[in-house]
C-alpha cells in the first residue's frame, strides 16, 4: 500500500515539474506564434490562447496545495460533532 502511495506521490512531483517546464514552453511558443510576422489573425489568436491558458494553469498549479488544504478545512468544519438523531 505504502508503495502505491509513494508511487503516486512521485508521479505528482514529476507531473508538477513537467507542468512547470511545459508552462515555460507554452509561454514561449505562445509569444512566438503571437509575434509571427504574418497577417493571419487566427494563428495569432491561437498563440494568445496558449499564453492565456498557460498563465491560468500556472495560477492553478501554484494554488494546488491551497485548494486541497481549503477542501480539507471546509470538510472538517462541516464534520463537527453532530447532534444525536431525534427519537420518534
Amino acid at each position, binding site marked *: 500500500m*505504502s508503495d*502505491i502511495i509513494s508511487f503516486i506521490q512521485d508521479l*505528482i512531483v514529476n507531473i508538477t515539474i513537467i507542468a512547470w517546464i511545459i508552462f515555460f514552453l507554452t509561454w514561449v511558443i505562445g509569444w512566438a506564434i503571437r509575434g509571427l510576422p504574418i497577417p493571419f489573425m487566427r494563428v495569432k489568436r491561437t498563440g494568445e490562447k496558449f499564453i492565456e491558458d498557460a498563465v491560468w*494553469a500556472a495560477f*492553478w*498549479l501554484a494554488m494546488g496545495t491551497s485548494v486541497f488544504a481549503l*477542501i480539507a478545512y471546509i470538510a472538517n468544519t462541516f*464534520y463537527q460533532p453532530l447532534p444525536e438523531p431525534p427519537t*420518534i
Partner: protein
Amino acid sequence: MELLVIAFYLSVLTYYLGVLIQMLPIPFYGVKKWAPQLMVDSVFSAILVFSYSLIQWIIDYLGHILGVDWNAYYQWFFNEINFVISTILTLKFIGMGLSSIGLNFLANSLISPLISSLTYLLVFLITFSLFVSIIVTLSPTLIALGILLHALPFRLARSSGATILAVVIVFSIGAPLMPQFIELISSHTSLTNTINYGYVPAYITVYDLKGTPLPYYLYEIYDENNTLLARYLADEKGLVNASSLFKGVPYNRQSITISLAGYIYKTIYDPRNESISKIANITYKLDNIVSVKTLRLLAFFNEEKAVYNEATENSVSLTIDSSQNTYVVLIGLKSDDLILHVDRVQVTPNERYEYEWGGVEFKAYKYYLKPGKHIIQASFIGSDRDKPYFKEIYYARDTLKININEPLSMIYPVAILIYRLFIAPTVYFSILFSSSLALSRLLGGSSSKIAHVLVSGV
C-alpha cells in the same frame, strides 16, 4: 485508512493532470476540454475523501430516524428460516406418510415440487441475507474503496465507485427495514401459524414406576400459548399410534399433559432435540404412579424414594421413604373396593372422592402418611371393565388441516411463503437497487441507460 490516503493522492494527481493538460501547447479542443473536467472531478473526489466520516454518520443518522434495528432484522431472518425449514420437514413427513399408504405418485407429484420450491426459497433467502450482511460488515472498507475508485483520473472507474458508495449507503439504511416492508404488503394474507409448528409422526408410550405401559391415558399437546394442538387417547396396551398421515405431533417445543382418571402429569417435549429418521418414539416414565390393572391406579406424592416390591393381579406393594408428610391416592372404578395397608395395617381413607372421567365413573381415596419408611399395599377388588371415551383431535387433520383430497391445503402455505419470502424481498430489493442507482447518479455515477438495463434487464 490507507485506501483513503491513496484516494486523496489520486485526486491530487487528477488535479495536476488537469493543470498539465491545460498548459499543453496544442490547439486541439478535444484534448483541452479534459482539463477543467479533471480539475473539478478531483475537487469533488477530495471532498468525498474528507467526507468519509460524514457519510458513515449520515448512514447512522438516517438509520436511527427510520428505526433501523439490526437485531430485530436478524431475529426476523432466523425466524423465517426456521419457519421454512419446519415446513420442509412437515412436507417430508407428509410425503413419507403418503408413500406408506401407497400414494407414492402423490408424494412425487405434489410434495416433491413443493419441497424443491421451498429449498430454492431457502437458498434465495440465505444468499440475500449474506449479501446484506457482507455489505454491512464491510461497509467502512467498501465506502473507502468506492471513494478510491471515484478518485481515479480520467473517470476510469468513477461510475463503479459511485455505485459502490450508493449501494452501501442505501442498503445499510434500507435492508434492515425489509421485515416492516414485508409485513406491510403481506398483512392481508392469512397464514395460519400452526404450520410453523412442523409435523412428525410418532409412537407415544407412557410407563409407570414398574415399567408397565399405562392404558387409556389421555395425551394432550399444547403450544406455548396454551392452545390445544392435538389430543390422543391411548389404547388398552398403552400405545398412542400417531404415526399415520393424519395424526402426528408438532415438530416444535410443546407442552404435554398426560391425564388418567383424574391424575395429571405435565411436561415439555421438543422433538428437535432428538434424531428422528422416520417416526418419533416418545416415551415417558411416571415415577409416582403404578397401574394395577386397567383403570386402577396407585399414585403417591411428596415421596423421596419409592421402590416397587411386588404385584398380583389385584394388588401392588411398594416401599415409600420420605422425610416429610406424603399422601397416597387410590383410584379405581366406582364399583370397586379399594383397600390400603400401611405397614401391614389396614387404614381408612382421609378423603374420598367420586367423579366422572371420559364417561367412566371413578372413585378415589386419599391417605396421608407420616414421614418415615412405609410399606404400603393397595388392593383393588372388582372386575368391571370399562373404557373412557374422548373426542380425539388429530394434529395433521384437525390442526394443520391437511387433506389429501384438497391439495390446496398443502400448496397454499407454500405459496404464501413464496410470496412473503421471495416476491416481497425481490420487490424490496429492486426498490433499494433503483434508489442506489439514482443516488449513484447524484454522486457522478452510472448513466440512466445502465440503470435501465440493470433494473429491467432489457
